[in-house]
């Protein structure tokens, strides 16, 4: 395997990731009754709301402290405190996330101090204000996501007596995937606390009357209990130690941490359900056993088509790793695996996953222009990743299976399911069908040309 270290030049041409606060917003959307205020110029919150709305097709209310030029000189704490006043008065949130921005961090705003001052000044006791430092230059959205989850837990979890529940930390999945993970755990009789649980908040059913803050999410009571859980399952192989919520729980409350990959693919799902079996002592229920059987059956049916696949995979590190493993399981070459953000973990995991292969390139901290070059060089015939990869189709004719975040040029990104045995089957079918589509739309003329028209004298 070839790990491409630095493909980075000065210019980022067509980025493959967004910035930290966007990911942090998503994490807060998984907390019951939570609202977020971004401390900075109002453009940040407007741009992020716009992008998140476009993917989820849901209202995304995020406030801003709307710092203007004088605020950059005299400090923005007045703006932030006023913003908190208004947010509380109009929305009555149960918890408020305060995120910083490039602007706030550059002028040296200490949001944790402002939050502490605010609760004292307004005599708010233990009201949960959770501040997360998320300057745009501090990392990508996947890093902002984990950092926010870690800060939420650090703020709310308490030293409670040990109990039998299991903490489950999910990376940025789709709401439908979170529902699927919950279904699997319910089927196995697991008593869990899942965080952040945006399965309802970011994919809420039509109902009257309209709720200002969508129902659902991990409750404050559940968050408080996480310190006493019997184990934490963190579904991420790529999260860095200092961002990992599971590490925090292990370090502070000695909750044993199990790092499981995102359960996409038969191996990763096996690992996940085996872990649940081990932790709960429950057997694998028949329903899941049969889903596994169907997946295997489908993999056998599809392997001959998939053997022709050479994939270029890009997005958040955990998603890239998960998709690469599903490809490896069914004979698709993950020819290019790429993430916009730096991820040593992804490089190492890819090395293990593709050990012995020379036709796989992993690249992190890169942009879609580099990914495009690598894809062409690798003769990729399928792209798997978010909508910004449509450029690979437009420029190079590589068809795109949309997966991850953001999906803004198709509907249903929030409803895609690729986790568990059933979800894996759905993703694999989408990949196989994409390959079949390329094949069937062109194979007759291609064969005619290759085997009949062109070679002369043979017949």
């Amino acid at each position: 395997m070839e790990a491409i270290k630095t493909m980075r030049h000065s210019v980022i041409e067509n980025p493959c990731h967004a910035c930290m606060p966007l990911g942090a917003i998503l994490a807060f959307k998984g907390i019951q009754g939570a609202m977020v205020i971004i401390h900075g110029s109002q453009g940040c919150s407007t741009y992020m709301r716009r992008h998140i709305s476009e993917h989820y097709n849901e209202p995304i209310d995020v406030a801003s402290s709307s710092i203007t030029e004088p605020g950059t000189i005299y400090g923005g704490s007045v703006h932030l405190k006023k913003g908190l006043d208004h947010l509380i008065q109009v929305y009555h949130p149960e918890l408020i996330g305060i995120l910083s921005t490039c602007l706030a961090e550059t002028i040296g705003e200490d949001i944790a101090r402002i939050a502490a001052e605010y609760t004292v000044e307004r005599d708010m006791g233990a009201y949960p204000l959770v501040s997360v430092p998320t300057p745009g230059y501090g990392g990508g959205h996947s890093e902002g996501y984990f950092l926010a989850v870690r800060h939420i837990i650090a703020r709310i979890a308490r030293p409670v007596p040990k109990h039998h529940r299991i903490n489950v930390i999910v990376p940025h999945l789709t709401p439908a995937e979170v529902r699927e993970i919950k279904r699997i755990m319910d089927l196995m009789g697991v008593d869990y606390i899942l965080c952040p649980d945006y399965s309802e908040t970011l994919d809420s059913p039509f109902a009257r009357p309209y709720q200002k803050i969508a129902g659902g999410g991990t409750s404050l009571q559940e968050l408080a209990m996480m310190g006493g859980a019997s184990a934490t399952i963190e579904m991420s192989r790529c999260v860095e130690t200092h961002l990992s919520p599971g590490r925090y729980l292990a370090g502070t409350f000695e909750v044993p941490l199990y790092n499981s990959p995102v359960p996409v693919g038969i191996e990763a799902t096996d690992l996940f359900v085996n872990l649940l079996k081990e932790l709960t002592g429950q057997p694998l229920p028949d329903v899941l056993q049969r889903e596994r059987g169907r997946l295997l059956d489908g993999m056998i049916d599809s392997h001959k088509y998939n053997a022709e696949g050479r994939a270029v995979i890009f997005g958040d590190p955990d998603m890239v790793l998960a998709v690469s493993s599903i490809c490896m399981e069914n004979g698709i070459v993950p020819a290019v695996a790429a993430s916009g953000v730096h991820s040593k973990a992804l490089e190492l995991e890819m090395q293990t996953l593709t050990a012995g292969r020379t036709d796989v390139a992993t690249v992190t901290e890169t942009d879609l222009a580099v990914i495009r070059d690598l894809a062409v060089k690798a003769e990729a015939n399928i792209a798997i990743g978010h909508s910004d990869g449509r450029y690979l189709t437009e420029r190079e004719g590589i068809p795109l299976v949309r997966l991850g975040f953001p999906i803004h040029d198709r509907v249903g990104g929030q409803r895609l399911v690729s986790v568990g045995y059933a979800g894996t089957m759905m993703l694999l079918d989408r990949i196989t069908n994409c390959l079949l589509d390329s094949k069937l739309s062109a194979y007759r003329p291609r064969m005619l040309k290759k085997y009949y028209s062109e070679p002369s004298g043979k017949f």
Partner: protein
Amino acid sequence: MLNHNTLDEILNKYPAKEKRNRKKHILIKNITQENQEIEANTRTIPGIISSRGCAFAGCKGVVLGPLKDVVNIVHGPIGCGYYAWLTRRNKGVSKAPMKNFLPYCVSTDMQESDIVFGGEKKLARTIDEVVQIFQPQAITISATCPVGLIGDDIQAVARSAREKYGINVTAYSCEGYKGVSQSAGHHIANNGLTEHVIGAGDMEEAPQKYTVNILGEYNIGGDGWVIKKMLEELGYHIQAVMTGDGSFEELSNAHVAELNLVQCHRSINYIASMLEVKYGTPWLKINFIGIRSTVEALRSLALYFGERELIERTEDYITRELARIEPQLLPYRRICAGKTAFCYVGGSRGHHYQGLYEELGIETILAGYVFAHRDDYEGRQVIPNIKSDSDSKNIPDLHVAPDENRFRLKLSPERAAELKDKIALSTYAGMIQDMKDGSVIVDDLNHFETEELIRILKPDIFSSGIKDKYVVQKMGIPSKQLHNYDYSGPYAGFEGALNFARDVAMSFASPTWNYIEPPWAHRPLLEGTLVKGDMENA
């Protein structure tokens, strides 16, 4: 209808000071009152969820972004470049496909070390690479928040790149915290384009008769193409469109036009005014959204040039188009008649779409702008009375003087005076004058007020952008995005009106709504209590 009591009930949710503030941004139109005043272009209240963006969005996102043969570099951390990447759906087609840079997002991706040690060198390297990769004729550099704070001198970097490569490189200090909304960014972009781009070309005279520019048309959903086609059919020559499907080449020669047509007054009126001073080019406020507005625009334009043949040709064209479009509109009108709309859009569409709605039989009962100024509501005559505050002072007014070689008086003072009675020459009357008695005008409408006003006024359709779209749809009301048109359009001109009618009627007629039970479905029609004794008698 909204009255002052119900309005107070909504605003009572705010702290007293903010209530006073918001009250100045909301008007109920009263025809017996002259010169109703509204507050606009002032600071957003922190924590109130507004739809406003920032100066960077107005500069790079709105005005510079649509220039197709220009590489727009975003100098800053990755987010801003990423978020402004093709998000306005402006369309552009290039004669040289390799010189169409619209699909590209180019960012310097500043890291923490750049914030600490400065990003000028990285910016200069980025320009080197951009020149190497794309070989553009022009480059713009847009600053994001940290750039101004750490003191990167982007103007100096642009200057040295201009010298090094001999191409047009301009820098825009449009940091997000400047001004109070994207409006500041429009102004900054207008200044830069006027100073460094318009007039950079070597044309001295208009290439042909009836040469005009179209200002403030961003070709969302192809609107600009409809307008261009219509005007070209009538014999006009479009020198430059600012900036939808716009090119550096055309823009740099925009000084030769005989007239500037202004579609979006808010985002481009600075250029219009400056070109009038610098090159003697008058501007005409037109609106190509809606059938009557389009007719009026075409007539005003013909009247400006004043030649009989042109006026007759225009009238023939209008008669022909109306005869073609009107019958096709009928089925849609039947669906739309009697409905009501909210029309809350950026800085001009909140006004522009009201006429088109009316032509479909839909009354606009509430309208507003996200980032407009008082003159967009009340008309340009209020400009001298607008108090300048610290936020507006931060955006310098560019003082231009008549260009020594290229100033041409395009209109004699007598002719100008005569025309001003008949057409909207170098003026704009604003939104309020077109609204009906009792209708509501809201500046910087926020999410809380949106929900409350929908609850009270129960509009049949809500026109806005994606940030409110899903709130409205979750309330069971159709929405029509007027920022990106929900990927539909064009909506300009005669043809566009038909598209709009089809889209809006489809929103009302979709069978989907039949599956939503109205709130009263499970409530008994009659309510009463059983009085003891009734049962015994029965």
